């Protein structure tokens, strides 16, 4: 009996595996449908306008539409500065945590996870309150000028401050994964014993080995800033995402066309990055093993 049982059970278990396959196909087909249809329908929506027939006007008009170039430029500038600031803050700190201050690691981890606990809308409510202190309490002090400069509409520094905070969880995870895969201590000690100074060791030995992680962090931050809406809208600035919503009222086709393009561009960038990361992955596991 005890011997019989497994042999009886074995054959259905062998048959079980092929029988799962149609179920898997159905699920994946369903998922593909759900994720592709909205994009495909959006493209149809932009080129097949009721009453006009097929037209590519929505795409050709984008460049000429008022506010497109200025809002995109603002978003790209914000992204560039945010990436620079967040990397300048995080890279030395993360490398230092690996090398010499492991006791601070939980502290930094918690700090970089805090933005996950405070939703952007709550965060911007707090920022708005702080910005009101300017005119209310500080109008006679030199600090007032700082507050004005923070909110300069041509380049609102306050958005950079907010975006750096919001990017911290992404950047922390990307850099942590990158640093995990290399032996920072050996690299730095090798560089130091060859006579390199601390900055030289960091820039010439550690950073080149972190290229993938740095790129990853930069792209994630870029995608975050380009798509960010909540903070910018509620503080009254008009970068890219806010502009799309503003223009949607009068030009529906155009706003959808810009949306589709921005989604595709962002996704293409991030997919390219992921492919780049995959190509590096085998060597990483090999060096660990």
């Amino acid at each position, binding site marked *: 009996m005890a011997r019989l049982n497994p042999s009886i059970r074995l054959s259905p278990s062998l048959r079980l595996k092929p029988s799962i396959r149609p*179920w898997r196909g159905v699920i994946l087909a369903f*998922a593909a449908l759900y994720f592709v249809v909205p994009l495909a329908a959006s493209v149809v929506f932009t080129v097949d306008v009721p009453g006009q027939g097929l037209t590519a006007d929505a795409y050709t008009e984008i460049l000429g539409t008022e506010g497109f170039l200025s809002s995109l430029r603002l978003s790209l500038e914000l992204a560039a500065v945010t990436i620079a600031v967040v990397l300048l803050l995080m890279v030395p*700190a993360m490398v230092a945590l690996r090398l010499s201050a492991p006791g601070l690691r939980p502290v930094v981890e918690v700090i970089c996870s805090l933005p*996950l606990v405070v*939703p952007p809308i*709550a965060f911007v409510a707090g920022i708005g309150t702080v910005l009101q202190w300017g005119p209310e309490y500080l109008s006679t002090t030199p600090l007032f000028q700082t507050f004005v400069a923070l909110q300069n509409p041509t380049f609102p520094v306050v958005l950079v401050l907010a975006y750096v905070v919001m990017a911290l969880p992404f950047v922390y995870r990307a850099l942590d994964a990158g640093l995990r895969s290399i032996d920072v201590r050996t690299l730095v000690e090798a560089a130091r014993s060859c006579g390199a100074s601390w900055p030289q060791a960091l820039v010439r030995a550690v950073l080149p080995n972190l290229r993938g992680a740095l790129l990853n962090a930069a792209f994630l931050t870029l995608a975050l800033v380009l798509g960010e809406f909540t903070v910018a809208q509620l503080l009254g600035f008009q970068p890219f995402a806010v502009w799309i919503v503003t223009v949607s009222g009068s030009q529906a086709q155009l706003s959808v066309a810009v949306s589709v393009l921005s989604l595709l561009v962002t996704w293409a960038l991030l997919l390219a990055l*992921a492919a780049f990361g995959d190509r590096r992955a085998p060597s990483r596991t090999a060096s660990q093993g």
Partner: protein
Amino acid sequence: MTATATSADVVPAASPKRRRRTTGWLAVVPLLVFVAIAFGVPALAMLNGAFTVKDPATGATSYTTANLTASLQGAYRTALIGSVKLSAVSAAIGALFGLLIAQAVVTSRFHALRAAVLTASGVLANFGGVPLAFAFVATLGNAGVLTRHFGLADKGWNLYSFWGLTLVYLYFLIPLMVLTITPALDGLRAQWREAAQNNGATAVQYWRHVALPVLAPSLLGGLVLLFGSAFAAYATAAAMVGSAVPLVTLQISDAISGNVLVGQQNVALALSLDMVLVAGLVMAVYLPLQRRSARWLA
């Protein structure tokens, strides 16, 4: 490790060590200062504002819990409940479908499919917002392609409703679940299934008594994370529905910009505090579960 390092140095052992420790601190300090200013000050301002009222006549401020009480009453209460309901429903559906897709991908022999789904999930889970909302408006909105083509409006379809919003939220919640649950599914050893089968278990029994108990922390963790993500979402809802569906994020934005009543800013801060408490609760549940499920993946 430290011993070999210091003995290799020619200089006396104590001085580079101490210098290294101070440089370590120096490298972390800018980050801490930045976060204290850019994050700490607004957070404290929110906390302070949530508990103060300003007398419009005298301009004097006083501490009170009136804002918090107000944030739990009337329209704000409806919005909070609406947000919780929407987040719970979409998180549950998202978790179910995310689990199914992840299982389909994990058991697949095609590595390219797996890589493609995981990469696409990483992208979809984090970056949707306004463009995503407009893609759905173009597809299923009042003048959307599918709505016109299939005459969905006559059949009672309305994108700007509870279920419409759920459908849109699933677009980033399902990928988030796929990302969260895939490592846990990878952790299910083939040997466990074989052992269960050798002991005469059916597929249902295997899932009921082996796989689901092992997956439970990850599943619950994923569910909580999805809830938090849906709860905090604002851009999608704002670009799509305006205020057709009562949501706490929309109420906060209305109150901040003074759309409804002037002088509701501090109630907005109290609402924000409510949200932070919910999000904090989410993290407090999620992190221990995450740690627990990590045990099986070692």
